[in-house]
């Protein structure tokens, strides 16, 4: 058997760099996921450059210029306290990104840990961990977050904790299902024969296999997270005034909605665009990370 495979172009270049490049190229070829990526880049850009992009201070009130319609001085108009809506939107993207980022980095590892441990060990471990997951799953997520925030007091941090509390069970379920499909696979048996400890098998063999679907799920989850955060903000249980959180902005703008459409329209569009973007990106990632297509790349 001669090795007829062509020599690899760059055998030493780290695989994940080329893989990431390939995935990004794949995402940009599809219009929906390209839209998602572009919106995401815009969101990150506006969050990073918020002080530069904002034309006004988002907290400074100007009671002589309340409820002004969009104009060249105030791109998206002003609110009931004379604050510039455009500048508040730009600064609000920081809050949105913080929520998404914090929820994702808490929920991902917790879900992955619970799911892979339950799936790998099976038996009693599985039963205990999964019944625990079921308890969290059985509450409607918004209601559980509401109860939690109501108990701890409304604040942005509590909203983040509350959302994390309701977002990890689906990840754990997914990771468990994924783990169970190959926990009897020969490559796991081979690792056991090499004397690998369960922790090592889970970390080195199982987690890499669960990663793509968990990443997709997390991306799709971000849309829900944004909507839940906006919902909590709208109900006055998330970010507190004067923080320029988009949901809270809609909540206060609601009272002036009939005369001043811009107060709810622009934050609403921002929430729509960002959650849609995460959904489309998640769909695109699902296609890009499909193991059946891996061989083509």
């Amino acid at each position: 058997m001669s090795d007829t495979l062509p020599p690899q172009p760059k055998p030493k270049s780290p695989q994940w760099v080329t893989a990431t490049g390939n995935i990004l190229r794949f995402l940009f070829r599809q219009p929906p996921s390209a839209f998602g990526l572009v919106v995401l880049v815009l969101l990150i850009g506006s969050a990073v450059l918020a002080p530069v992009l904002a034309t006004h201070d988002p907290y400074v009130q100007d009671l002589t210029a309340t409820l002004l319609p969009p104009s060249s001085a105030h791109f998206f108009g002003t609110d009931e306290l004379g604050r510039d809506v455009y500048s508040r939107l730009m600064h609000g993207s920081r809050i949105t990104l913080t929520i998404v980022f914090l929820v994702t980095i808490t929920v991902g590892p917790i879900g992955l840990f619970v799911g892979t441990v339950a799936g790998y060990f099976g038996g009693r471990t599985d039963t205990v961990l999964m019944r625990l997951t079921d308890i969290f799953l059985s509450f409607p997520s918004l209601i559980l977050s509401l109860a939690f925030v109501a108990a701890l007091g409304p604040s942005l941090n509590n909203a983040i904790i509350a959302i994390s509390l309701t977002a990890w069970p689906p990840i754990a379920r997914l990771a468990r299902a994924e783990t169970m499909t190959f926990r009897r696979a020969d490559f796991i048996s081979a690792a056991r024969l090499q004397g690998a400890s369960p922790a090592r098998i889970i970390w080195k063999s199982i987690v890499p296999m669960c990663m793509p679907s968990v990443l997709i799920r997390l991306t799709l989850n971000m849309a829900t997270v944004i909507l839940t955060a906006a919902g909590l903000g709208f109900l006055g249980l998330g970010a507190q005034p004067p923080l320029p959180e988009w949901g809270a902005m809609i909540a206060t703008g609601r009272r002036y909605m009939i005369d001043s459409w811009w107060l709810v329209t622009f934050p609403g569009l921002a929430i729509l665009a960002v959650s849609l973007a995460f959904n489309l990106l998640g769909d695109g990632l699902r296609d890009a990370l499909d193991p059946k297509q891996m061989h083509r790349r």
Partner: protein
Amino acid sequence: MKPLSIRDLSVSFGALRVLHDISFDVRAGECFGLVGESGSGKSTVLSCAAMLWSQWTGRVEIDGVSVQDMSPAERCRTLQMVFQDPYGSLHPRHAIRTVLSEPLKIQGFDNRDARMEQALGDVGLPVDFLDRYPHQLSGGQRQRVAIARALIVEPDVLLLDEPTSALDVSVQAEILNLLAKLRDEKGFTYIMVSHDLAVVDHMCDRFAVMQTGRVVEVLDHDAISSNGATEPYARELIAASLEYERIA
């Protein structure tokens, strides 16, 4: 070279008895075959011996030491297994370098690079395969990597679970010749599961015929061509195989 002996190995799943008091001895450096129809418990014997499945009774001893009493590290350095399906036995997201270096790291071997190159050389693969991924290899190449992974920890006993049945005929011969060469060079003791009597004829010194979880008869390699079996089931199996070869 170490001998292996199995005494009264029994496995039950609830009320269902899968293995009934399996006993046989494998001499040091011997290639011992296990043949039988599907579901006769051949692979289960290997899983038990390798402690992949630990709910069994009886004794499996390698050089007088029971595999149940060995520490995981000791067991790992004493026996290794090559699996049937080379597409399922290599982690799809691990480069060959990871596949080969993991056992070395776990067992605390030094000189890892030299050992990995040595192991790849032993199975006839070039060193630059270290940076390939399993999906970039053919079935035969994968099985060579799986063999390299098994022998890199320098075991005494290799359990071969139908190592060639997922490969096509020409590649089968290559892998079998490789296994025969490695046994000559390194003095492994093999237990080889197969349902292909031609493979057993080519490789094994002795073999056991299994049926529904029992060892029907232990035969010498010569018994195949002469059909020297005494038990009716073993005679039938060998006759069917000879008949098949005459047609083919």
